[in-house]
């Protein structure tokens, strides 16, 4: 569904991504893990064109998308749930979700999605009218995921959903991610917490200093001694 071929990206002269090749199959949940500053977020930003790649190709459903504008990519069905939430803080929870559904034309689908989101995040339903800036960190993350889902995306890009959350809340978020997976939404997840990511993901890419160092299925990576030592701490 998504195919990234030989992507290079530089911030001025600092290399952020180097020769990234990555494929996400339809219906799967893949994860990119790696330490801080490895280029994980940059990779997602390049896919949704919030950042322009310096070289390389991004293909989505057989179509080249790396030359489009960010909003056009969003309309193609790629929803980006950005790092640090980036909510519309002065608007209510409901208005945030409505904005997420901006490119959705079907009104029936809108209510369907809204119900689904309120089902996986009942807290959001309780706080429907509340200003999103006053939500707790976990609730804000739920809202950010909900907003991305409101676009009825074919591909969901999730950037560090566990960032800055308490372990209990993290588990809740990841339970929701599994539910989203069961609904059949293809997801590419970027995550620092390797244990959590490997618990849900099918294929895992390890990104270090802008390069994909290791790739493989969950089972393959669990056998890898370096992964065990560095990321899983076993």
């Amino acid at each position, binding site marked *: 569904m998504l195919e990234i071929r030989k992507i290079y990206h530089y911030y001025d002269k600092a290399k952020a991504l180097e020769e990234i090749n990555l494929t996400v199959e339809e219906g799967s949940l893949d994860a990119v893990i790696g330490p801080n500053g490895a280029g994980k977020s940059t990779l997602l930003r390049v896919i*949704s064109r*919030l950042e322009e790649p310096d070289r390389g190709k991004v293909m989505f459903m057989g179509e080249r998308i790396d030359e489009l*504008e*960010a*909003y056009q990519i*969003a*309309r193609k069905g790629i*929803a*980006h749930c*950005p790092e640090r939430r*980036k*909510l*519309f*803080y*002065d*608007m*209510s929870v*409901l*208005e945030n979700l*409505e*904005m*997420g*559904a*901006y*490119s*959705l*034309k079907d*009104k029936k689908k*809108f*209510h369907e999605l809204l119900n689904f989101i309120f089902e996986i995040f009942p807290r959001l339903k309780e706080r429907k*009218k509340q200003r999103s800036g006053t939500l707790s960190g976990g609730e804000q993350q739920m809202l950010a995921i909900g*907003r991305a889902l409101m*676009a009825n995306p074919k591909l969901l890009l999730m950037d560090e959903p566990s960032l800055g959350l308490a372990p209990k809340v993290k588990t809740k978020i990841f339970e929701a991610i599994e539910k989203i997976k069961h609904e059949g939404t293809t997801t590419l997840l970027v995550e620092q917490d390797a244990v959590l990511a490997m618990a849900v993901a099918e294929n895992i890419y390890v990104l270090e200093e802008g390069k994909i160092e290791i790739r493989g299925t969950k089972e393959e990576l669990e056998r890898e001694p370096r992964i065990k030592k560095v990321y899983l701490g076993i």
Partner: protein
Amino acid sequence: MPKKIRSKVSNTVSGTKNFFLGIPRATRNLYKEIPHQVKSFKEWIFTFRGSLTILCLIGTILVPLITMDDYIMTILISFLVFSIFAASWDLLAGYTGQVSFGHSVFFGIGAYVAAAFVKMAGLPWFFSMIIGAVAAILVGLIIGIPCLRLKGPYLALGTQAFSLILFNLFMSGELKDILGSTEGISALPAMSEAHIVTFFFILIIMVISFIILTIIVKSNIGTIFKAIRDDETAADASGINTTKYKLIAFMISGFFAGIAGGLFALNSRAVNPSVFLALYSFYAIVMVALGGIATISGSVVGAFIYWVILTELFKPMGALGTIFLYFPTLISALILIIMIRFADQGILKPALEHIREFYDFLLGR
């Protein structure tokens, strides 16, 4: 007070947020919301805010019937004109987050074009005013396109630069064949014979402008503007063409600022390059800050405090010496600093809370 009205009060307060539920795409649906808006307007009249607004409006209408004093009329007219101008700035800066320090450009273009069409082409004032506002839209586009890449203070500087360019262009007298030389255009025909008629014309235009602006910010397009203000990246990632909507905001804001400028020129029957001065942009900012940013209606309160109370309060000081002529401006700069430090919400919202308590008290709650 009858029970029916009371229940309506609570209904609308909790219900206003639901305006655009289920209408994900708005620009093309804006007209469909009008019946809805009319219905909520009828309800709104009976709410606390609604009755207060109607009361203020009636008060304004009554003034010329009580006193026909030309001086008071002049003050009130400039208050009305500048409240439109402040509201147009509020739409751009308060709602869309595009803080422009060059709003006098739209004001000045509106003023000059309206004056030119009345004077040179002999068109009726209303059409000249509309043409001036349309010219301001075009200028909004011309300024908007290069300034769209700028954010925050850089946008403020960029827009400010445009107002300086236009001021110097008009000061140079290069445009004297079409738009007058350094003295501008003067001796325009009066809008009407009687002052009181002019006053009502301007009052009607002002009320209509505020209704349109309120409909815009309450509709889905207003939510999109707020989304761009709160987080442009997230808005982009939600599929909003932020470039397009920022340009739309520039154009709408330019239109109303142009109307204000046109009325200003037509009412004072003259226009000169000083309308492009940063001072006029500053007026809008002070009035919005006084009334409350991102409220639209706050602009009226701000304009009233600035033009009717502050300016008139300090005007007698001008007699004490030339240095005191600048006193109103100095004081308002001081007030702006105080407002930003201690009351960044403006005074409309806190004041409304207090009046509301009083209102509830009157209703016996």
